[in-house]
């Protein structure tokens, strides 16, 4: 299991692995939105939590189709399926690797980009916390979506269409936590619900994803 995690991380950091891609996209969103909306810091401060959450969501969407499609193409998915690892574990590890290179990285750079967007000072810890709690759900849900489109040649666009509606609850609660944090409101309820979605997805979706992989291998 650890070997698989290390391999996926190594591959992500090697050339063409897509590690920088998500971060660069995230940065672009944070730079382009003020250019589009206008430089008024009051408006930016209000929309900052939402923009950062949507940016994080799209950045993590960007690299989803690599999770399984590459392994399917070069045959390692077959070999992994016959290896002494449960497929559910393979899915969980791959989602974890995806989270480490996208979700975690995005969480860590989010405060820097929040400066660009004039996020009120009170919002920083909550923005970080909401991303840290919510992005694992984005990776697991995305990994599930990726297993549905493994066998398709141009599955990228379809994958986005399948995954986006599944992302809605995570986005709503995650952005709500960040927004309420920035406005200094009570946020225990959305935070608890966000954590519940993450925990539930982590616990159940690997099984659905493993079933989908088995269907695709046959």
């Amino acid at each position, binding site marked *: 299991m*650890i*070997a*698989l995690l290390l*391999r996926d991380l*190594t*591959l992500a950091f*090697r*050339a*063409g*692995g897509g590690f920088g891609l998500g971060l660069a996209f995230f940065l672009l969103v944070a730079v382009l939105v003020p250019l589009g909306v206008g430089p008024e810091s009051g408006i930016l401060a209000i929309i900052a939590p939402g923009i950062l959450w949507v940016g994080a969501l799209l950045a993590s969407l960007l690299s989803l189709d690599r999770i399984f499609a590459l392994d399917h193409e*070069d*045959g*390692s998915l*077959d*070999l*992994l*399926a*016959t*290896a*002494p*690892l449960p497929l559910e574990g393979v899915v969980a590890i791959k989602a974890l690797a995806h989270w480490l290179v996208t979700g975690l990285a995005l969480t860590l750079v989010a405060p820097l980009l929040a400066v660009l967007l004039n996020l009120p000072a009170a919002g920083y810890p909550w923005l970080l916390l909401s991303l840290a709690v919510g992005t694992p759900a984005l990776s697991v849900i995305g990994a599930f979506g990726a297993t549905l489109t493994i066998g398709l040649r141009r599955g990228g666009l379809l994958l986005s269409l399948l995954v986006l509606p599944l992302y809605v609850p995570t986005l709503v609660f995650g952005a709500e936590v960040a927004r309420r944090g920035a406005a200094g409101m009570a946020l225990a309820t959305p935070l608890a619900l966000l954590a519940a979605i993450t925990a539930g997805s982590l616990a159940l979706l690997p099984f659905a994803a493993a079933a989908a992989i088995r269907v695709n*291998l*046959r």
Partner: protein
Amino acid sequence: MELRVGNLAVSRGGLVVLEGVGFTLHPGRALVLRGANGIGKTTLLRTIAGLQPAVCGEISAAPECLAYASHADGLKAALSARANLSFWASVFGTGRDAAGAALERMELTGLQDRLAAQLSAGQKRRLGLARLLVTGRPVWLLDEPTVSLDQAAVALFAGVVRAHLAAGGSALIATHIDLGLDEAETLDLGAFRPRQLRPVAGGFGEAFDDATGALP
């Protein structure tokens, strides 16, 4: 570990392509599968490896004793030869030394730090086959193992298989090339081809094509 296969039927694309397949593979023996292209050698091997469900029949060996090597080598182009192999060694829990020993056996030690992307087709194939050595599993299922190997490499690989058999392992090989294995018997799959291709029971094909005439 004895691999016994009895009355096995396998399907591809919703059609039964082989049925009544039966053989026993004893430790120390090899069985070469022969048959024209498209007869279902790959399908049979994948079914035995547990990657796809059998239509019916028994396979005695648990998937835990089988090591499957497909057409594709499952190599990561961005990793070195050694890193590729060490990964599989740790997945199969055979330890750090297994990868080095396997590289040596397949005469890849000199290339171990090269990225897999920079290996030639034959070298990649050898690296893919070296993976079998690090699985530590007794029954090898090999799908066209000699593709893109030159004569010397074929002989090298035949030696590796022979050593595996001598150590009490066994191998089921789909190939057109004579590996020169004295321990090998041959099984012609042509005999198991159904006289008329029929859809799998319970599949979409059978449900909609029972050949009893038009739908009402």
